[in-house]
């Protein structure tokens, strides 16, 4: 019989379930942010590419700020700003909000590159064949541009999944925060961090390899 009380319990099989749930939340917030961010980013990127200066000085500057300030500062800043203007937002909503704009800022650049890759001569040719502006955008720019920048979009998506770990500072129970809670309880940082790292790796590695393969396939 042990004489001292034990405050720490070992790593158990149910803890894997706890980590798995948290991993699901990591995926959830990433999926929401990537979806919203990509839609916004497409609109912003298109506006930046097509406008002379109005979009550049407005959207361009804002997105530039979001790319130049650490994500963790953005998260803390917005999480503390929403209550000031009277919005009640939980960690998930605030985190998804910031991550979405952050994604949009990165995607906007990718989209600009995609439109650039199509080139003016091709677009003028499309217009002179009688296509409207929107036809040109839908049937010429979209398919060609998408091919050019899809691998970089995958790169952005992967970096957002990894950056979603920072939402833990708002108290959102995603994978990294869950692993920290377990570390506090079990005092076995190595195994638990290895599990969390393995999950991120298992998610990110195949996707990055896949996009690299696509890139090579399209380049040749």
């Amino acid at each position, binding site marked *: 019989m042990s004489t001292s009380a034990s405050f720490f319990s070992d790593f158990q099989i149910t803890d894997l379930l706890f980590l798995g749930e948290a991993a699901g939340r990591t995926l959830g917030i990433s999926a929401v942010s990537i979806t919203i961010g990509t839609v916004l980013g497409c609109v912003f990127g298109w506006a930046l590419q097509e406008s002379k200066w109005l979009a550049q000085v407005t959207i361009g500057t804002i997105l530039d*700020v979001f790319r*130049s*300030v*650490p*994500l*963790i*500062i*953005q998260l*803390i*800043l917005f999480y*503390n*700003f929403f*209550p*000031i*203007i*009277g919005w009640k937002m939980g960690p998930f909503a605030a985190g998804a909000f910031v991550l979405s704009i952050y994604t949009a800022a990165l995607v906007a650049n990718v989209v600009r590159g995609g439109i650039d890759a199509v080139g003016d001569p091709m677009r003028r040719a499309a217009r002179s064949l009688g296509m409207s502006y929107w036809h040109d955008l839908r049937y010429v720019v979209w398919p060609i541009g998408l091919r050019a920048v899809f691998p970089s979009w995958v790169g952005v998506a*992967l970096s957002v999944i*990894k*950056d979603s*770990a*920072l939402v*833990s*500072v708002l108290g959102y129970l995603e994978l*990294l925060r869950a692993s*920290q809670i377990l*570390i506090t309880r079990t005092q*076995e*940082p*190595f195994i638990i*961090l*290895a599990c*969390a*790292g393995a999950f*991120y*790796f298992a998610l*990110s*590695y195949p996707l*990055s390899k896949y996009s690299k393969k696509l890139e090579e396939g399209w380049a040749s």
Partner: protein
Amino acid sequence: MDYNFHWRPVLRKIPELLEAGLLTLEVAVLSMLLGIAIGLGLALLRMKGPTPLRQIATTWVEIARNTPALFQLFFFGFGLGAFGLHLSPYLIVLAGLTFNNAGYLAENFRGGFLAVPETQVRAARSLGMTAIQTYVRIIIPQVLKIVYHPMTNQMVWAVLMSSLGMLVGFRELSGETQFFASKTYRIFEYFAVTAVIYYIIVKIILLASNLVARRLFRY
């Protein structure tokens, strides 16, 4: 809106914040220099090293690129504790950033080296250049031109990533901000000022990088 902004206490602390900003820059620059050295080694090992070393280099690069930077920092902070190795917050951030930088830079360098055709090495050697001369005069200048912009990006990232130091108790710009913010409860004001400082730091780096590039790549 019934919130009163109090900027005065924040403005009074700006000298301290700027000093912490220098610490941020210091750790970012150091991790960058170490990262460049290790990244070069990793890139060369991946291309020309013997199999076991090549596998180690590949593992390093893939782990650095496919896991969150925060995870890498935690690993150096808490994971190594399992082996009885306890690093100071400064070393945790430096090690984490260096690990990450080296991984990303190695991939950039590899791309740079692969972009310079092998035939140029042979041409230089047959003109009577030594192996070292070939590298210094033919290969490195071309590789540098290719990897220069990715390197600038990595430097910016290093500055942004160093903000994670606040989560392991490092008192760089973010950590210092958090310290003051929790003392005064002026969280929004403090972090707003910090965001501005980060923005300025990043802009200065980009400006300096452009100036150097103009000088380096005149031809």
